[in-house]
């Protein structure tokens, strides 16, 4: 990343089928293959009800992946996602169950504030201390874990799931899951933010060369802080929906999400080095991961075999990306 100046993908590429688009097409193709393959094994796969249910589940993953994608575009990584999810769920469920009506009505904003706070803490380490995000967010995750254990003890958190969270997570409007509608809205806004706003342009630029952005006089630090805070808010938002879906908060509920979230972003064509990727890819990536895990569980594989196949398929997708792309490492 230091001396190797990677070529910045020009925004107005004349070739319609540039590398990013190929990645997105590839992953969409993957989704279709999964659906068709699944329908061979289990005829219910192509039914509308099943697909809508998958879209609903994919929305949770997709919203959390949105935050992860922003951080990855920046060229950093956020490993504090699991306990941001768990922490938010615990805060929201216990605030909402509070006897004080003031606190219980503010449960969801409180949860989002927690996410923003965690994001700010991450950003301080990365933007001010210039620590590697990989290590700092790991330490933040450890602290969140400790705080959650201290707060809840070893018992399950008692409380109440806010009505709004349940409605957003499992409610349906005209037959379409609300969670998916929320995700679609977020997707449209994200595509606009990434393509058309100053922030979006700085984000891609930072991912390509933080040094260049700093030298250009842009407020590099502010971009880092904004990105991590946004990522924290998205993690919390996803956690609130997840809470509405599972109807309970428990320790470790966020742990199974870290790997799928990063996988969804990366197989969607976002470069883990930052500066390249688009939201449509992440969208398709989240769908792909959801379909894949659904098929593996329908086939009633033992967890171990599921892990192996899951890892192997992600590896193959990555290899296809790596081998079709131009040599960008040297």
């Amino acid at each position: 990343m230091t001396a190797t100046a990677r070529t910045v993908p020009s925004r107005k590429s004349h070739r319609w089928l540039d590398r990013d688009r190929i990645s997105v097409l590839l992953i969409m193709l993957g989704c279709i293959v999964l659906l068709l393959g699944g329908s061979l094994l289990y005829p219910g796969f192509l039914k509308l009800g099943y697909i809508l249910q998958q879209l609903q589940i994919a929305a949770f993953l997709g919203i959390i992946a949105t935050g992860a994608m922003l951080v990855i575009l920046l060229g950093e990584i956020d490993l504090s996602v699991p306990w941001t999810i768990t922490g938010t769920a615990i805060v929201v469920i216990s605030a909402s169950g509070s006897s004080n009506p003031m606190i219980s009505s503010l449960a969801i904003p409180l949860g989002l504030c927690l996410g923003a706070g965690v994001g700010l803490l991450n950003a301080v380490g990365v933007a001010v201390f210039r620590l590697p995000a990989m290590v700092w967010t790991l330490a933040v995750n450890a602290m969140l874990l400790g705080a959650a254990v201290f707060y809840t003890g070893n018992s399950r958190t008692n409380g109440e799931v806010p009505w709004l969270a349940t409605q957003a997570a499992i409610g349906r409007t005209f037959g379409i899951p609300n969670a998916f509608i929320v995700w679609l809205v977020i997707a449209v806004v994200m595509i606009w933010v990434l393509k058309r706003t100053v922030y979006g342009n700085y984000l891609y630029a930072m991912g390509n060369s933080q040094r260049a952005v700093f030298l250009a006089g842009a407020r590099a630090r502010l971009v880092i802080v904004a990105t991590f805070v946004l990522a924290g808010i998205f993690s919390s938002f996803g956690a609130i929906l997840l809470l509405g879906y599972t109807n309970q908060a428990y320790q470790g509920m966020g742990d199974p999400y870290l790997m799928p979230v990063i996988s969804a972003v990366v197989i969607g064509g976002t470069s883990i080095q930052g500066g390249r990727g688009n939201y449509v890819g992440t969208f398709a990536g989240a769908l792909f991961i959801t379909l894949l895990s659904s098929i593996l569980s329908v086939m009633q594989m033992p967890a171990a075999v599921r892990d192996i196949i899951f890892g192997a398929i992600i590896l193959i997708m990555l290899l296809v990306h790596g081998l079709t792309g131009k040599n960008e490492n040297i």
Partner: protein
Amino acid sequence: MTTWLRRNAKEAIAALALVVLFACYIAIHPRGFSTYVVTIWSNQGALLGLAAIAQFFVVLVKGIDLSVGSIIALTNVVASFLLNGSPASIALGTVVVLVVGVACGLLNGVVVVYGRVQPIVTTLATGGVFGGIALLLRPTPGGSVDETVSDALTYAVGGIPVSAIILVVVLLALQVFLRWTAVGPALYGVGSSEQSAYMTGLRVNRLKLIAYGSSGFVAALAGIYVSMVTLTGDPNIAPSYTLNSIAAVVLGGVALSGGVGSPVGAVIGALILKTISSLTFFSGLPPLAQPFFEGLILAIAIALGALGVFRVRSRLELYR
């Protein structure tokens, strides 16, 4: 002496922190300084120390290994099947376990080098595969390991824990490998600037494979030692080793940007981590508060290591 100190400043600071923490630990421990206490500490430290060395090799060539824990879990599980019976079969079993470790490391290396996939996502995926295989072989912790070998490797000889001796021997061997062979300095070269290394005529691809293979080898050593300490094979140990090994190398002054650091630093970082968690265990804090303080101390330690950013003259140096 001063130049030596300046050159190894990060390791020296880390070592100082370790000495202070260890002194606190001994002072706080109800049984004080005894062979028993030090042996337990050293055994735990050796496990994470080996994991940190495995992580070090990958970080040295500018990678990151999220599958280290899974390789340790897999080799640990394989060891729990093979490391008993006659001396010959134990010896053969050890070789098989080491081969498994090297194969896992090399697989990572091949995907990174020839598949041109970033190390972090490669090892994320392969980690899932290795962990899955471990879980398939042994769905629940179990198996057994030859107890005489285990006793010989986990107790103390003449007041010195065997695990400490093993760690020192491994570190000395690695020091020779990294300083006095042609390969060692070349690895540092690849880590600090791949382009320059390539222009100099180093075989970058092959060197990277060596680094990943060595990482797998040391991870297998860690896996074997886990089975010696716990006497079982446990497929669920992966996450804690992966995450702690990354924290350990950073605490020990190994730069995640590659080409900087030493195995000694990595081991010191691992020992610091282990001492912190033992310290909170005996500190008298309420048990439920301990995980939080462990995380807090880890965060403070990492942040302290980065205080150098406030001495930087030009802010340009902060952005790369």
